[in-house]
């Protein structure tokens, strides 16, 4: 599943790049994330907790900065995690591509998530899993932009994805009307 987002940050690309490489700074922007150990400068262990309706999931895994290309202003981060109770596995690669936009930087975030195991072997839940992944990545982009702009740490608590979605759907229904 490929999820694409863009965010703009009020720093020129040369200054924005080191920020994206600062995993302890970036990681908490993914809701429900808790870094537990720095393995080396580029590799971190952590935990992502989330709730999909009645199902509480907790992924333990590692995130690694795989490639930094200062020429093309591209960063590749890979992450993989295993759900605590073996209900699934997730493998993700995130490519950040920076380009100047005005005085700031436009960051394109392309996330490719592969989910496997019980959590996705459920046809009726496929829609909500896709939506949850999309929502998490959207939230990540928003929170990262906010953090770079404002500097404050985001709320580390595991989010109830449902409640976030409720607001977005309400907005869609009241604002958007019929499709």
């Amino acid at each position, binding site marked *: 599943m490929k999820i694409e987002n863009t965010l703009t940050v009020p720093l020129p690309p040369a200054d924005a790049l080191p920020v994206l490489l600062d995993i302890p700074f970036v990681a908490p922007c993914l809701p429900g994330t808790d870094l537990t150990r720095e393995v080396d400068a580029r590799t971190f262990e952590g935990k992502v907790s989330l709730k999909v309706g009645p199902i509480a999931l907790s992924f333990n895994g590692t995130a690694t900065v795989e490639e930094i290309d200062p020429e093309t202003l591209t960063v590749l981060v890979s992450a993989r995690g*295993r759900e605590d109770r*073996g209900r699934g*596995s997730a493998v993700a690669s995130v490519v950040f591509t920076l380009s100047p936009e005005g005085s700031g930087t436009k960051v394109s975030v392309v996330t490719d998530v*592969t989910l*496997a*195991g*019980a959590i996705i072997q*459920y*046809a009726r839940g496929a829609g909500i899993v896709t939506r949850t992944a999309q929502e998490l990545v959207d939230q990540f982009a928003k929170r990262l932009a906010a953090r770079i702009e404002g500097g404050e740490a985001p709320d580390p608590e595991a989010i109830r994805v449902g409640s976030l979605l409720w607001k977005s759907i309400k907005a869609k229904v009241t604002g958007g009307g019929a499709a």
Partner: protein
Amino acid sequence: MVGRVFFGQSVKRLEDPDLLRGRGQFLDDIQLPGMVECAFVRSPFPHARVGAIDTSDARAVPGVIGVCTARALPDHMHGKRILLQVPSPAITNPLTQEPLATDEVCFAGEAVAVVIADNRHAAEDGAERVIVEWEPLPAVGNVADALKPGAAKTHAAMADNVAARQALGYGDVDAAFKNAAHVVRESYHTHRGTGHPMECRGVVADWDAVDQRFRIWTSTQTPHNTQRAVVDMFNLSEDAVRVITPDVGGGFGPKNQVYPEELVIPVLARMLERPVKWAEDRREHFLTTTQERDQLWDVAAAVDADGKILGIKAALIHDAGAYLPWGAIMPYISASTLPGPYVIPSYKIDATTVFTNMISTTPLRGAGRPQAVFAMERMMDAIARSLGLDPADIRARNLIPADAMPYDMGLTYRDGAPVKYDSGDYPEAQAKALHRAGYADFPARQAAALAEGRHIGIGIGNYVEGTGLGPFEGATVRVLTNGRVAIYTGAAAAGQAHKTTLAQICADELGITPDMIDVTVGDTGKMARGAGTYASRITVNAGSSVRIAAGGVAGKLKALAAAKFQVDPESLELLDGLVRITGTQGDQVSFADLAKMTSGMPGFVLPDGVAPDLEASGYFTPAQATYSNGCHVAEVEVDAETGRVKILNYVVVHDCGNLVNPKLVDGQVQGGVAHGIGNAILENMVYDADGNPLTTTFGDYLMPTAEIVPDCDIIHMQSPTPLNPLGVKGAGEGGTIPAPAAIVAAVENALKPFNIRITECPIRPQRIVQLINAAQQNT
């Protein structure tokens, strides 16, 4: 009571008294002292490399006794794969599964480790805590993708996804197409489903350290195959491996495989020196029990001006799934089934079997035939449409006439013998079915319904089915010293009432009632050789061998009594457990007394030429398959706005030769149709593009229920086969085979006003609506 015959009677089932009281002994009901239970650690990924496996957390779980991975298995198992059951030169990559995957997993659900605990709950807790480093690999999640250039590879080390190639045919197809007045082409797609017996699989193993031998109970259709595979894996003698089938809660094909668990559980029992049980749960069944039916067909028919078929050209891509446990039999059966009951002067088909990263496919009730019949019958409807003829008429013009029997089709069947239809009246079968279904006045009914806004339709499915496959099945019949009779056969039962059927056949030979007979099925310790229950072969093979063996015992009984009474054996008859001089109230001797005398009683001297023990064995080895046939006519109503289909009427004309027990045959047909209804309108095992299974509960994979399946109107024709002493043919799969073709044709016919064409099955409401919407947009 003289002259009483049980063959042909709907006697009550010998199996029922226990089953109705909850006293069946199914696999999971087995409890042995000191027994432990298992749960497997299975790949979440459809395709991945297996890295390090950390079992330390799992071992700390309360109740967990141990964890075993591929590398912890005994040396002799390393690198060894499960015995390929049906080898064939057509197979380019004869790859079967490892008992536990070592380096690479190729479908979601493939096991890499097993957790042993004091109960299943604790074992599952442990399995949750085994941490495997997976490296996901690109996967093939769809049969249509497997041959595309640049496709992912199902097995990382293989050059492509081709598992087997087969080409069949006869006659001059090119000439036929050149001379054709019409050429009709269509493509078809049939989807995956599976058998879903209500009892999942399971294995119990016990290693006798004193005698150095295994006892293995497994919920299988083919205990001798399991025995062969265990013997092969462990380098043991057959005497050291006894495989026993308890009561089996349904099979339908997938239980005729040998599965990794049937090798892993025994090795654990030997390593731990205590009995070990694994009982599959339904989720595992969805992931790891074999499936079938995904095929892509391109069919072209050359037809003359009168609607007679001149030739058929076809190409078939068959989805093997990840491995080939049963070889490449289904596509071969499909290819040889396509021509069916029709005169097809020339024929050419290329079948390609491809690997995909989904659970392997193996024969499932119908075994490649439902797909072939779907393709052929849909093509018949397409020809009818294209020539402006009635679907019944186009079939009638092409059916093999009864006086052409026996009919050599021109192909070689899977048993190596020519496909030679032995008996049957195909035109009469169709005529009877149409008559019973009220086909002649259907157009009037259809018009009347349409006037009320109701869409009803009718569809036909004809088929011929090779059954009663060899190589053989055997049976031993023995008179016990208490006067009862025992039958032993290797053929395992899974609900077909083998015990009842075989007892009926034996009872007639011995002049007793079936309830005097105890039948033991599916125990390799009781019958050294056997093939198993598949291919609708048991009544033909085991039934005939019981007839032979019982005949041998009857001869022995008479010889002994003749010696005792000093009379000619010809003057004796068997009745109610006695041997007596025919028609007189004179001398008689009981089976029990004769059994005691011949069982080694001191002082008793056997008459000349009579071997000890009142026992005889028989093996029946059929010369070729025997061909059952039939015609199904379905009438349905479709809600064109929601796509919901209701089956209003279902007629089956069924010819499986002589009927041993008509009620049992009716049960097979009715149950088979129910399965076919599932294949037609409900059951679809859905995978995503990466091979992740999505329908893994009974809430998402829809089995037919009581309000879906109508009471079928079953008419039996009986064309006895000359190929076996009973004149019987197989009956277990004919209910399923033509059902998707007939039902889908009926749905299409009901939607005639919308002019849609349905070339796939199952056809579900959403798809029906999509087709209607698409057709309306085009007009």
